[in-house]
């Protein structure tokens, strides 16, 4: 199910992007960007009330199954953040993160 996973930084560039063997990264990247627009819309409509990423996520896509996936992703992301050698804004090169993403993509595909 997950053909592409991307982590986008605040400045709208990808910190991490991985797609299934089809390797149509560019296409996915565009799709991710367009979905960013949707995210922006959601944020603007909701105002500052609920800056809960999880809620936003649920609002965008298929809720339940991917919710778990998102949580895993988010946990891995925080683990990456914990690494003092990681500078925010760098590409994510953590092997643990990679393996987690791979497992997620395999699992649901």
């Amino acid at each position, binding site marked *: 199910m997950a053909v592409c996973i991307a982590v986008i930084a605040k400045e709208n560039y990808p910190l991490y992007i991985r797609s299934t063997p089809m390797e149509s990264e560019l296409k996915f990247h565009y799709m991710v960007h367009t979905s960013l627009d949707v995210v922006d819309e959601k944020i603007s409509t909701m105002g500052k009330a609920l800056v809960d990423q999880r809620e936003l996520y649920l609002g965008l896509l298929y809720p339940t199954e991917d919710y778990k996936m998102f949580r895993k992703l988010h946990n891995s992301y925080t*683990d990456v953040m914990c690494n003092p050698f*990681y500078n925010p804004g760098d590409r994510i090169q*953590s092997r643990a993160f990679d393996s987690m993403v791979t497992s997620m993509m395999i699992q649901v595909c």
Partner: protein
Amino acid sequence: METAAGGGCGSGPPLLLSEGEQQCYSELFARCAGAASGGAGPGPPEAARVSLGAATAAAGPVADLFRASQLPAETLHQITELCGAKRVGYFGPTQFYVALKLIAAAQSGLPVRIESIKCELPLPRFMMSKNDGEIRFGNPAELHGTKVQIPYLTTEKNSFKRMDDEDKQQEAQSPTMSPLASPPSSPPPYQRVPLSHGYSKLRSGTEQMHPAPYEARQPLVQPEGPSSGGPGAKPLRHQASLIRSFSVERELQDNNSNYPDEPWRITEEQREYYVNQFRSLQPDPSSFISGSVAKNFFTKSKLSIPELSYIWELSDADCDGALTLPEFCAAFHLIVARKNGYPLPEGLPPTLQPEYLQAAFPKPKWDCALFESYSESMSANQQPRDLNRMEKTSVKDVADFPVPTQDVTGDDKQALKNTINEALPKDVSEDSATKSGLLPPPPALPPRPCPSQSEQVSETELLPQLNRVPSQAAECSPAKKDVSYSQPPSKPIRRKFRPENQSTENQEPSTAAGGPTSVATVKPHPTVQKQSSKQKKAIQTAIRKNKEANAVLARLNSELQQQLKEVHQERIALENQLEQLRPVTVL
């Protein structure tokens, strides 16, 4: 094969070697021969025998090996003569094997004669640090099957330790792999030179291993850098210095390790070193090092950021952005390994897991590291350069003192710390005063953050290795006056000072005044006091140990009392409830 070679050389009696003996002897021979040829590496022993150049074992390593057998010198002379080495002037394979057989015979109590070796003998035993190795050596029955690998390994370790030469490192690595049925994956050749240099440096300068952030080690290794011929002077230096700690691992590995991942096993010395470094960053051993502090520290290792990031990933098991002591040791060890050329593992090796490390090196071990760190901390305020001088003198003392009591917990140390804190205000002040006055040999140590130096001072004071403290404190107090000369004379002074301080747990701190005055008095007769001091040391050690134990037990007592009270209260509450319920049931 060996017998054929023996027959071919014709200079000795025909040898009948069992399979295990063959393997061991050929391995030993390869070691000695390899050492002679200076880094030819652990090629197949047959090749070494065949080729003329490497067909002989150098006298040096062989002599070391023979000495390791702990036979008297004249026995060894006899053996050397009998095996024919004296006659031919070198240790060929035949001579070497005959000699080993004779050693085995001598160790079994048989007379040193050619006839003795014709019978079935156990393997010769070479006394090294490994007791297990000796035991395994001694039993030929164990030499069959997979167990051959164990004496094989221990042989290497034994002979490895004996070889005072460059090759040890390389050969230890590859043979460690080979019996485990995989091609020796020794690091690429270009790294062997730095490894060997690092190792020889280790032999000469063990005590200097402890203090140091990476820069500090540079000057230590500097003299060997240019002669190493390694890839680059700078990486070599780092490698060599780090290799020192790493090569210790090769030397001191436990025999009971069933793990094939020898490079990922932390030895005692390394562990102590890591703990010292931990303390320099974080005085409390049961607490964390924050991410930023660790980052700064590890960045000094000059590894690339992605590698450091990966190492962090591996070692920070709970992903909390902070390193506990076992995590820190694992990370440090990985860095050392990486600098020595080992590729980083895919996952954290089992010997580096925090649970394993905590089990393998329980808290008490910190104690022996404590006193070393004490020396660190004492001088840390005066800049850690002090350390090296400290370390040198105190290393000798280390040998005198066994590992301290097992009971001292971190809490106890804390409590005692505080009491001693009051007792040692002088040291602290002196330390700060001497900040600029001390310039021990390696000058490049950056000043360590030492917020709780006084704590460390007091903490480590409790340890039996207070022997170091005298030298430490000696450094501190007279440092103002006389940097280089004060060390020996002040050593005895401090012994007086310390025990008095020790008793200040219970009494008034009067020693602070006593310290400087004793400095003056002792200076005139240093040597006399030195001798008597050594005798005092032992007693004082025992005293301190007992006091520590007392403190620990007192603490335990109080805790148990607390628990008892709580349980009492619970019981009372339950009984009340029971009372209330009883009338109901009766009715």
